């Protein structure tokens, strides 16, 4: 039988826009959860530089905790699994979907349900946080552009909540 497996998203194709803010589904990404007690060993395994501090992002890899990194890379990027090494490399490309929130009102829209002080989050920062009851990873790409990573089954709820809050 021929291979016809196409990717599906839980989010609508159509973006929505409201006063000073536009919300859209992000393009597909290759995602990895990267863990290690010693970041140097992890950097050696994946052959990439890692951010030096929690909240930093370097070449698509965000540091979420002392031993936790999230890689958001172009589709098709393969990282070595680091078998035998004291690291964990897990492909989670399909676990989450991305939502892009951009515009002058982007921060205000996210703060409708996110308790973080986004005035204190500089562009280039990333963190795990929540929107009301739903967990997400928030990446500030610029002053007016954010990328949200949310687990697949929670994505429709988050999309609809953002939509209502934007009204």
């Amino acid at each position, binding site marked *: *039988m*021929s*291979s*016809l*497996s*196409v*990717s*599906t*998203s*839980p989010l609508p194709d159509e973006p929505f826009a409201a006063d000073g803010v536009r919300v859209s589904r992000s393009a*597909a990404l290759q995602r990895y*959860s990267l*863990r*290690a*007690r010693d970041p140097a060993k992890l950097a050696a395994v994946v052959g990439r530089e890692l951010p030096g501090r929690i909240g930093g992002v370097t070449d698509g890899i965000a540091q979420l905790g002392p*031993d936790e990194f999230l890689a958001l890379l172009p589709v098709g990027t393969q990282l070595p*699994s680091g*078998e*035998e*090494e*004291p*690291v*964990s*490399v*897990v*492909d*989670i*490309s*399909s*676990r*989450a979907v991305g939502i892009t929130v951009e515009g002058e009102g982007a921060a*205000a829209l996210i*703060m*409708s*349900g*996110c*308790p*973080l*002080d986004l*005035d*204190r989050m500089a562009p280039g920062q990333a963190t795990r946080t929540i929107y*009301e*009851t*739903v967990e997400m990873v928030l990446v500030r790409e610029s002053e007016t552009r954010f990328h949200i990573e949310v*687990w*697949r*089954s*929670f994505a*429709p*709820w*988050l999309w*609809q*909540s953002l939509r*209502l*809050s934007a*009204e």
Partner: protein
Amino acid sequence: MSGYRVTGAGRVDRARTVAFTFDGQTYQGYEGDTLASALLASGVTLFGRSFKYHRPRGVMAAGVEDANALVSVTRGPGRFTPNLRATAVEIYEGLEASSQNRWPSLKTDMLAVNDRLGMFFPAGFYNKTFMWPRSFWEKLYEPTIRKMAGLGNSPTEIDPDHYTAAYVHCDLLVVGAGRAGLEAALAEAGSDKRVILIDEQNELGGWALSDPDQAQWLAQSVATLTAAANVRILTRCTAFGFYHDNFVGAVERLTDHLAQPGSGAREKLWRIRAGEVVLAQGAIERPLVFEGNDTPGVMLASAARTWLYRYGVAIGRRPALMASHDSGWQDAFAMAAGGVTISAIVDVRDTVDDALLRQAADLGIAVHLGSSVIGVSGRHKVTGVEIAANSGTGRKRIACDALMMAGGWTPTLHLWSHSKGTIAWDESLGAYVPDKANENVRCAGACSGQMDLGTGVVVPALPTPKDASRIKAFVDFQNDVTAKDIGLAVREGFKSIEHVKRYTTNGMATDQGKTSNINGLQLAATALGRPVVDVGLTTFRPPYTPQTFGALAGHAKDALFQATRKTGIDGWAQDNGAVFEPVSQWRRAWYFPQDGEDMHAAVNRECRAVRESVGIFDASTLGKIEVVGPDAAEFLNRMYTNPWKMLEPGRCRYGLLLREDGFITDDGVAGRISPNRFHVTTTTGGAARVLAMMEDYLQTEWPDLDVWLTSTTEQWSVIALQGPRARDVLSALDTDIDLSPEAFPHMSVRLGQICGVPVRLFRVSFTGELGFEINVPAEYGPAVWKQIVAAGQPYGITPYGTETMHVLRAEKGYIIVGQDTDGTVTPMDAGLNWAIGKKKKDFVGKRSLARPDIVAPGRKHLVGLLTEDPSLVLEEGAQIVADPAQPVPMTMLGHVTSSYWSEALGRSIAFALVAGGQERMDETLHIPMPGAVHKAQVSGMVFFDPEGARINV
């Protein structure tokens, strides 16, 4: 003067008249009026009926502290709001307001008979009287009492409005925009601090709005703050609660004041995190306690001044003043300056400052020192007062049409108290003031006790020659608590103010004692003969004023009440007629009825398909955890009861997880993907809990282990393909995995590709049939599912839901943790001894399995039950007894945990937890159910294919 409107005074906009109705009658006010000021201007004095006695009530205060004038406002279907304070309702064109707690009308309220019978309704009356018979409470007493006593009616329709919310952060939050609050904000206007200034009223200014002398300063201050880019001003916004770490909740009313509310949100919940909080909540004037103090037209002196100077409304043509504090005199003088004739000033003090006396003389106001009001005439409106010297002599009447009362000032400590700041008694104020802060918060202005309002004396109740047991002198107007109720509570032995509060209801509920707390406290302290500080103060609780449920719920209603998690395949299931059931946060396909089948017919058909050919099931909700690292096997060995270290890559094992106490908490199958990588599955409902439990052990008990946990529940779509033709269907698909039984035995896992996407293919079975679980990246789940369904058509592939899954697993004796276990079941109780690694030195829960109670005989065991009548399906949860003839209450041996009709066996089957069940094999037990007692025989739990021949093919 037109009506009671005073020309030239007030901030209302005379150019803009506003028509509204109250109890169906049309009135006119001006823009800027509240419902209370507009009605007072029209000569209305009667606003409502009291909570318990149905006494006529007017407005007592001009702000949210008013405890009397509660009204309902309706704005069309579903938009009905009860218990609003008339003093806080802004009028708009077409406003429809009505009074509450009266029948048939406000003026003629039949339930006012309660007032005459008042001596039969003392504090605690309900608790004492309506205790017996117990069964009468729900059906008779409570409904009747609720009808007779109470506030407005609850809304009966769904609220069509929507409510929004936001978090906001600031360096300085100022609560209250009176003079002190404005000054605190002004000090930072233009600085680099982020400042938020909130006030519950429609305009900034607080008391300054009632004082024309401050008007110019106020206008300048507001202009400065409005122009300051670093200051966010929120009016019509109530800070209702102060929580940990300077977190303040506030609700902004966006549309309630608008004639055309539009389609925007009605209210906005602000969740404010502040570096520093300045509380400038002000102070509230205290009523005085005397007979008739609740008559319509008796009100706080400061309120009368506010009506005049903020709203241009005179409370009467000849009001009198009853004071125990200088501030009332100043209010009376200000009223006189505004053209209102003051008929008399009565002061309980024998002497007051000469300057006050001189000013009263200059204004020609009669003064009665050392005297008190002892009665008020008029039922719906004051027509006069009776006064007497404090000695009880010299009783005389004074003609007046309103009475102002000035009992001194109580700093508003509500939010300070929420923040757990301590308080100290200030003897000169006769009130508590803020003491030590518990957060980065300070009080400014009147709420800190800094007031320049003169002096006064504190009197719990005004002296009266009347029999104190025969009069009603109100302390808590909203809850209808009188001075004698507090005396009664003390006589009945309540010594703590917290107990007095609960017994009398003083200071409870929506009002939170704004005007009553200190008077109640003084009365209790006097009755107890103890200093006030020894009696304490009741705790203020959020919300400061009542807030709507809508504002607190926000978008969390209807479809957004909680995230309903759906798998990628959910859409296919919906298109194919699935009936769904919720399983934790997920919605799962329950069964797939065809052509009008009921659930049993559908499930029987689905079961037959799996046993005879092949079925397909969406198992994507199974919890999945990727356990990776050099110590992965060691970690699983410590967590689960089973041994893991010798499991070869490519093989799977059933894992049983216990809590520290030895009871089963979860189970699942794990596959060893590579030496240092496991794909662990958990129950659907246990996914988050198990991951948290594992992280807890890893971080606190074994931080030395090099192993990491990653939730992969949502990474994989899991398609279970089960039945004797499962391999045939899979073989028809494009895959590079050798599916032959020799190359791919039961309980193994292979990595490869299927339909062009990566797959982790498990050969596992929760049905007792040849089975596969196809794990593909979630985004490809729907596409792969459809291809399998297409490939399965020659075999009549049948989608099945959770109900069929439950039946099939029960036929095989497989338990479901959480259904067949309840947190008190050990592996031995569940017949799962085989899953315990006997040679293992330790695992979570191992030591508990040797506890005396766990090894004692007679524990409840999980066993099978076969009913004598094979067609009878027992009720899950039904109790089990040995002898149905024994007297009630019977000794219950246990209960039915799972029960189904088995299509494969042509009879019913059940599991049950039964005391000593493993020693009762073949014994007949009895299950009383509605209508009949049923017999069933204890059996093993594997009802179908006990040799397992069907799996290993």
